[in-house]
């Protein structure tokens, strides 16, 4: 266990450092984020004006913009984990990875985490600066940044496992881009990236809460604008539960994948 944690930390650290080499890509993403946030401001300004209300789904316009800053920073930091597994399987690079004394899924997940943390921090810093200029400072509770940090980290682990499950299907499908598209769109819509879950119809909201998507995006962002220790504990519980569930699924699918290589060739 101690050895695995050391390996996760080492791989994540190298991946984070490597990602800083893609400074052009990071810069273009953050520029795109600034444009998106400006468009959101205009859209939500019009929505608040039309509804003649200063609060929608429990959020003021300023809170809405800060909520969207967090959701966009999370969503746009998604790593190329599933695509990487696709490439490893198709190119045969998988054989090289399997010769190292670290579990392949653990290696992929650690690398994705390192990469994602760098991207998230760059996105959030830019997003916060833009949102600050557009709607002014957000008066968050002192605990909010801590809650955000912890829940975002767990959201990244959870999302990483989701990407891993999609990527592992490459052993059967060879190209998982279709599955990945469905997964990312579901996490975008049902995860509350564009619209907070408070604005979903009640039936949809109660259904979505049984899925992992809200705990990837909506949970951490909502907690940032509405810090609450009880909700923090509930979110952590749901995230841990889904992480355990997805870990079990990864273990089963990876076992099948290795069996498949052995039976049908790499």
């Amino acid at each position, binding site marked *: 266990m101690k050895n695995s944690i050391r*390996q996760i930390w080492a791989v994540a650290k*190298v991946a984070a450092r*490597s990602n800083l080499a893609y400074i052009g890509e990071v810069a273009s993403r953050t520029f795109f984020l600034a444009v998106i946030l400006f468009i959101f401001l205009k859209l939500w300004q019009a929505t608040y004006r039309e509804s003649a209300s200063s609060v929608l789904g429990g959020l003021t316009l300023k809170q809405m913009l800060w909520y969207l800053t967090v959701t966009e920073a999370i969503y746009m930091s998604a790593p190329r984990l599933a695509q990487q597994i696709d490439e490893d399987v198709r*190119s045969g690079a998988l*054989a090289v990875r399997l*010769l190292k*004394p670290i579990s392949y899924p653990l290696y992929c997940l650690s690398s994705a985490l390192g990469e994602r943390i760098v991207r998230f921090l760059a996105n959030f810093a830019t997003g916060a600066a833009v949102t600050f200029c557009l709607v002014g400072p957000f008066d968050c509770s002192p605990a909010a940044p801590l809650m955000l940090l912890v829940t975002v980290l767990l959201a990244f682990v959870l999302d990483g496992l989701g990407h891993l499950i999609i990527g592992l299907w490459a052993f059967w499908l060879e190209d998982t881009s279709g599955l990945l598209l469905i997964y990312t769109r579901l996490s975008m819509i049902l995860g509350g990236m564009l619209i907070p879950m408070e604005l979903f119809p009640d039936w949809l909201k109660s259904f979505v809460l049984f899925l992992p998507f809200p705990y990837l995006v909506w949970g951490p962002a909502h907690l940032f604008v509405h810090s609450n220790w009880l909700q923090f504990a509930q979110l952590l519980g749901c995230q841990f539960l889904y992480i355990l569930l997805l870990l079990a699924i990864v273990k089963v699918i990876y076992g099948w994948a290795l069996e498949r290589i*052995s039976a049908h*060739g790499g």
Partner: protein
Amino acid sequence: MNAVETDNLRKVFEIKKGLLGRDSKTVVAVEAISLTVPAGQSVAFIGPNGAGKSTTIKMLTGILKPSSGTASVLGLDPWKQRSKLVRQIGAVFGQRSQLWLHLPPSDSFDLLAEIYGIPKNDYRKRKALLVERFDLGRFLSTPVRKLSLGERMRAEIAASLLHRPQLLLLDEPTIGVDVIARQNLRDLVCQWNREEGVTVFLTSHDTGDIESVADRVVVINHGRIVLDDSLSSVSENTLIEGKPAGLEEIIAHLFSGATNLSMQNCISPS
């Protein structure tokens, strides 16, 4: 002690056909490989594309489970003790890198040290030794993407030796590398084989690699061993149609599909 021992190793793949994979056919990738490699030997394991080289190597490293036959690598069962075995194997693939492209080799070395769990003091000494021997000092802090192929391959081989492997797998280690750098890589592998007694298992289509590095040549075709002899014996005593032949000519002849039995008509190992 033998580094590798296999007895009638066989691998059959079931290839699914059709949309739902209901139809399938079986393909024999490795027919029967029986091989004993003493520790410290350098073996060139060669064959044409599709001969079963990669499948054999994947079975020896525990990635694939054989359909029948047995194997022992460094005294371990590759399928049951894979995680223990990979700690004692170093691998260099000429067309795949284990180094992080955007980072200097030094960072990849640090990561490998963590992955293999090398104690810090041992790692420092080992790294210093490899840097000196492989002359990596000049570019140890340069991102891998900026290195020449020769420099990159030197760093790759050094990386694969960090954890003191007992078995070094080299798959086309000199592919695309210029003549001088190629000879340099071969010399370094030979040096390490002599000094640390690491067993070298080389696959290459370059006869220069084989002649420089290997003590022994094993040629496989259609999943079977068609030639297994010491390099000196193959080079000195083999005749094709009564005439002495170079290694390249002999290998080409074997690759052309001749079986061991019919080989005796055209190639006469004396």
